[in-house]
């Protein structure tokens, strides 16, 4: 009689144990080992000690900057778009919604490759052709400095994720009771006041959620930069992220133990940031009150 519930949750439990818990534990163990084919040896904290190198610092900086910038862009822009989509003409809105959402369905490999070809350094590439119309010289877009590289990565992130975040904010907006706006109307509130006093505060939970996944996404970013520089190291490591560094150590240089240590550090960073964020916004307290 009581077996059935367990059977139904078994697939989840199994996949969690096999594909999540076991890899995490074994990564933790591997971070204290030197792992070579057919030869595994415990070496204490050596792998963590080696993290004190300029490349890891660059990777950490790049990932942190990328995360901060994506949060700074991917919260206000989708929020405003969602609010606009929520008030206008219904038929047109669903069209706009689809248009904005489509990019997130495109594989990052395809998007990155197309972007790379658009930005190719030949004078015949699309971006350089457009630049030439305005009298600009053809540029080696992908071989530029860190600011230019970050800009390209942010454009790609914005194009891809705005639609997804709009959907989150739209669903949040739909949970705000109409009466509050009606009451505000009666009190003579302006549109801006309603946005500032009603919409944004009541979207807090959605905003916290979007911020949290943006932290995950930002620190986990790898494919975008990997594809944009065609799998080669980016010039001056302008596109090197923590996961990129992990990939280089593990698969380019065959240092799986070191890669595991990087993974564990990443886990700790993301975990600490997310928990502190939730604490700051007293997410848990609210949860308890309910």
């Amino acid at each position: 009689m009581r077996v059935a519930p367990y059977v139904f949750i078994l697939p989840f439990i199994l996949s969690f144990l096999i594909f999540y818990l076991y890899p995490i534990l074994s990564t933790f163990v591997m971070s204290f080992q030197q792992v070579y084919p057919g030869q595994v040896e415990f070496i204490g904290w050596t792998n963590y000690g080696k993290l004190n190198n300029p490349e890891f610092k660059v990777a950490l900086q790049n990932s942190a900057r990328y995360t901060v910038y994506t949060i700074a862009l991917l919260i206000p822009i989708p929020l405003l778009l969602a609010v606009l989509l929520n008030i206008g003409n219904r038929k047109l809105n669903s069209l706009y919604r689809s248009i904005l959402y489509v990019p997130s369905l495109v594989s990052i490999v395809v998007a990155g490759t197309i972007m790379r070809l658009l930005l190719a350094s030949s004078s015949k590439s699309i971006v350089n052709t457009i630049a030439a119309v305005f009298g600009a010289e053809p540029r080696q877009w992908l071989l530029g400095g860190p600011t230019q590289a970050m800009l390209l990565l942010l454009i790609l992130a914005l194009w891809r994720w705005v639609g997804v975040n709009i959907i989150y904010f739209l669903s949040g907006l739909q949970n705000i009771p109409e009466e509050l706006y009606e009451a505000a109307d009666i009190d003579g509130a302006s549109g801006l006041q309603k946005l500032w006093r009603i919409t944004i505060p009541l979207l807090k939970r959605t905003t916290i959620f979007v911020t949290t996944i943006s932290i995950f996404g930002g620190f986990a970013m790898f494919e975008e930069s990997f594809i944009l520089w065609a799998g080669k190291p980016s010039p001056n490591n302008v596109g090197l992220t923590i996961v990129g560094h992990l990939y280089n150590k593990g698969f380019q240089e065959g240092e799986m133990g070191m890669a595991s240590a990087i993974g564990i550090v990443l886990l700790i960073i993301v975990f600490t940031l997310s928990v502190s964020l939730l604490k700051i916004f007293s997410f848990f307290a609210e949860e308890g009150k309910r």
Partner: protein
Amino acid sequence: MKRIILVTILLVSLVGLVFGAGAAESAKPAAAGVSDVSFWTFQDLHLAFYEKMAKLWNEQNPDRQINFVGEVLPYEDMHTKLLVSLQAGTGAPDIVDIEIAKYPNFLKGNIQLAPLNDVIDPVREKFVTSRLDIYSKDGKNYGLPFHVGAMVIYYNMEILKAAGVDPYKIKTWDDYMVAGKQVKEKTGKPMTTLEVTEQWSFWPLIAQQGSDFLDKDGNVILDNDTNVKTLQMLKDMLNSGIAIAAPGGFHHAEEYYGFMNDSGAASLWMPMWYMNRFTDYMPDLKGKMLILPMPKFSTGTRSAGMGGTGTSVTLQARDLKLAKDFLMFAKGSKEGNLLIWTDLGFDPPRWDVWDDPTMNQPNKFTDFYLNEDIFGMLLEIKDEILGVNIKEKLPAVIDRVKSSVMIQALQQQNRTPAQALKEAADLSR
């Protein structure tokens, strides 16, 4: 009771669903007496070569038939997948192509590749042995090379003629600079292009002078005097307009092929294996290109062996002996070495075939290039093809040469060659 039976059925089918999918894939038995030999590569041209050799093997070995199953994977994916399956101890193919820059990763720990000494020994002296050494550790050979990778220089004769330059008179790098200036003045075109995100413009030049990224024991010597001087020379070439940075950053970029195809630069130094890039990706240069030995430095040689792919047998091979014998037949036999030239346009690693009549028969390469006797030229520099040291730190060093040294010293010029090399060397030590 019924409920328990139902639950059991559900459980069994669930487990079956998870594990059955994998089982179905491998259940493709070979015909009786035929052994499966699996193969991974990252280059479809290589696969076509092995498939031809497998057919030939089956004709010559009726009692040891093979069913050759090859798979082409993207470069990074293939090496990653191989590393993981060798580490896991399961899932690797019988035979695999490993690119030279990745090879040292597979020589770490308890090497999971089979030593090939027993099959190589009978014909060892017919090989350019420096090319066997690059895939070796502690006297054991783990990989067979595809080619010698001799460095050569490709001249665009149309541009040189317009500038009045005779490439046969270019013997030293100083001559090359003088010719470069003349080309620039007369035609407005650069003499050459330099890679700023890869190592092929830099590595051969230091190798010509007996220097390298690593020494014989694997220590980092990236920042030695020879290397600093050589990088400075490249920087001077860029700043004087003799050279430009390769469009796209390196000589395999899509935009680079387009640029060169339009006769963008007068010459280019790359290994012999670059020959098929011209025939396949820059067809408009047909009948315009001449291959000659590299210019020399005051000390040093006219060439160096660069790049390559080592093919190895993994210890997971189903029939180790068969896999080794087939690999040796494919890459080590005379037939195989001739096919390496006629089909792939590589300079075969067995020098005893270089004067074979087949090497002079017309093919797509002899049709394309202006040379009358490409291998005559190669035989002439045979003893000048210096090897490089392929040791454990190489992947990390090459990574830094690509990502920082070339960009900083040549493209952005925000570090002097000495600074850029020293920083990368210190990081790698």
